[in-house]
């Protein structure tokens, strides 16, 4: 069974696994330098120009697995020596150009940048070209290609530029830590910092959860992951790592949906607050709209707060698909409640660092949340849940017009309209990743069937209503 989408993920995983393996037994300091040799043995290079460069890059990956550069506030980092300095050609005529008679490319170019040689083949004058892409659109042979770096193409908010030595450079003022570049860079040159060592340390020092308890709170998108095992087995695996217990973040989503519906009805216009990358984007690019961001914590924050309010000395670790959550827990509003964040990639590495074969474990149970809390994991889910929460609370004097935005580009369009007061809607559901959280950069696999998996997981919830799921908490807290 394939665990990852790409070899890049697999490589990153191997590093995390080895770092974790030695960290459990307090041997990391002495064994750290051996890890590159274990992963790239022998003398034949398979990825780069030579094994020495391969190992040097692994050394950098180890640094990131250990938490990365502490002086860099961004949780996403470029590994300079891993960046392959991809060409940045822009629009170029390829040899598929047939030298036709029509010359549509020439006609459509407003800058007269296209000329023809004696064979009638087109050429683009780069001093005139403004990269509008019209020529590529009209060419009947599709002969004009857009040569762009995958990281820049992935970064829809244009936070990545070409820095010194042609190495990719992230503008921290713009970056929202969504991790799109991390997943898309074919050389794995951009990575999210990992906090696995903090988590391992937390578990070890808990003295088998005697001194304090370590809670794992898991994002609902987990239902589309670890497809080689059953969800109940994943829960057993998490407990076998040393977590005290596992609680669904979907319960936090139920809480959020419930109070977000109220807030929306009061204020009349709102954006969701569950996606940290989206929230960061609004703050950075549309500061005027920032007051309209829902004042609720994200589902992660809401659930963690509930747990900490009941048990102040415990530790809470969020496990999810998201790199931006690593940034969210640094926010003052969230810091007191969530102690660390792991991605599903990192969870897989932790399982294997202890040689846990989760597929052969017994199935544990997981049931805290409702259908609606669970479908937060996919685009459109928050809107559905808020509609349901309005209904359940009998708020019928408010006409919900939700605008679910799938991916940061769709978010940008909706926010732009909202800032000009021409948005046809009163609730923006912002999800930075395509498809919602199931498209997150920290997912092991991304696929078409993931949305179905999330919906199925939602249907399996014992609680059919939001009120049903959170009423227990309300009851016992009043």
């Amino acid at each position: 069974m394939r665990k990852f989408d790409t070899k890049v993920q697999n490589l990153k995983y191997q590093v995390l696994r080895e770092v974790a393996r030695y960290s459990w037994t307090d041997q990391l300091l002495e064994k750290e330098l051996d890890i590159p040799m274990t992963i790239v043995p022998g003398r034949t290079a398979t990825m780069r120009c030579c094994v020495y460069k391969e190992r040097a890059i692994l050394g950098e990956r180890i640094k990131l697995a250990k938490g990365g550069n502490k002086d860099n506030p961004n949780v996403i980092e470029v590994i300079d020596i891993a960046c392959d300095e991809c060409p940045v050609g822009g629009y170029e005529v390829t040899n598929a150009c047939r030298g036709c008679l029509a010359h549509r490319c020439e006609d459509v170019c407003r800058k007269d940048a296209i000329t023809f040689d004696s064979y009638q083949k087109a050429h683009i004058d780069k001093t005139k070209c403004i990269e509008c892409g019209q020529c590529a659109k009209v060419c009947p042979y599709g002969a004009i290609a857009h040569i762009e770096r995958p990281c820049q193409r992935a970064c829809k908010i244009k936070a990545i530029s070409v820095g010194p030595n042609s190495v990719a450079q992230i503008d921290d003022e713009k970056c929202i830590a969504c991790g799109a570049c991390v997943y898309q860079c074919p050389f794995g040159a951009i990575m999210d910092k990992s906090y696995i060592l903090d988590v391992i340390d937390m578990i070890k020092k808990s003295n088998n959860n005697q001194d304090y308890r370590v809670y794992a709170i898991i994002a609902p998108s987990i239902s589309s992951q670890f497809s080689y095992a059953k969800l109940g087995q994943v829960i057993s695996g998490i407990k076998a790592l040393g977590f005290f217990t596992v609680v669904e973040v979907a319960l936090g989503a139920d809480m959020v949906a419930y109070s977000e519906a109220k807030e929306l009805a009061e204020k009349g216009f709102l954006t969701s607050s569950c996606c940290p990358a989206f929230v960061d984007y609004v703050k950075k690019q549309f500061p005027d709209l920032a007051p309209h961001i829902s004042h609720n914590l994200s589902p992660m924050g809401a659930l963690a707060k509930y747990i900490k309010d009941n048990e102040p000395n415990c530790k809470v670790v969020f496990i999810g698909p998201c790199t931006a959550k690593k940034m969210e827990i640094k926010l003052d509003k969230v810091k007191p409640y969530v102690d660390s964040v792991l991605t599903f990639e990192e969870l897989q590495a932790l399982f294997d660092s202890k040689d846990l074969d989760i597929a052969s474990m017994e199935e544990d149970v997981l049931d805290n949340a409702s259908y609606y809390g669970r479908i937060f994991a996919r685009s459109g889910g928050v809107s559905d849940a808020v509609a349901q929460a309005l209904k359940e609370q009998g708020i019928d004097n408010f006409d919900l017009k939700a605008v679910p935005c799938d991916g940061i580009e769709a978010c940008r369009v909706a926010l732009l309209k909202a800032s000009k007061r021409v948005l046809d809607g009163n609730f923006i559901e912002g999800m930075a990743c395509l498809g919602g959280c199931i498209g997150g950069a920290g997912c092991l696999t991304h696929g078409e069937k993931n949305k179905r998996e999330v919906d199925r997981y939602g249907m399996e919830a014992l609680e059919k209503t939001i009120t049903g799921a959170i009423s227990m908490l309300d009851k016992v807290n009043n």
Partner: protein
Amino acid sequence: MMIVQVCVGSSCHLKGSAEIVELMQKAIERDHLESEITLAGSFCTGQCNRVGVTITVDDQVFTGVTKDSFSEFYREHIIEKLKREGSI
């Protein structure tokens, strides 16, 4: 003040902790013990049982409480304890 925590973790939730919470609330209300007992929730206490729900009374953990055994549990471990402590 006695603190009674009903587990609302996954395992107990599936075994009916919602009903137990309700029974507990009703009993407290019936006996006018609102000022003696704080009812709270807890996530897993790590004592999941094959039957019933886990309830923590102050620092003592009881497992396997079902809606059938509830009144017995309530009488023995809550009312009697309150009496022993001289609260009622």
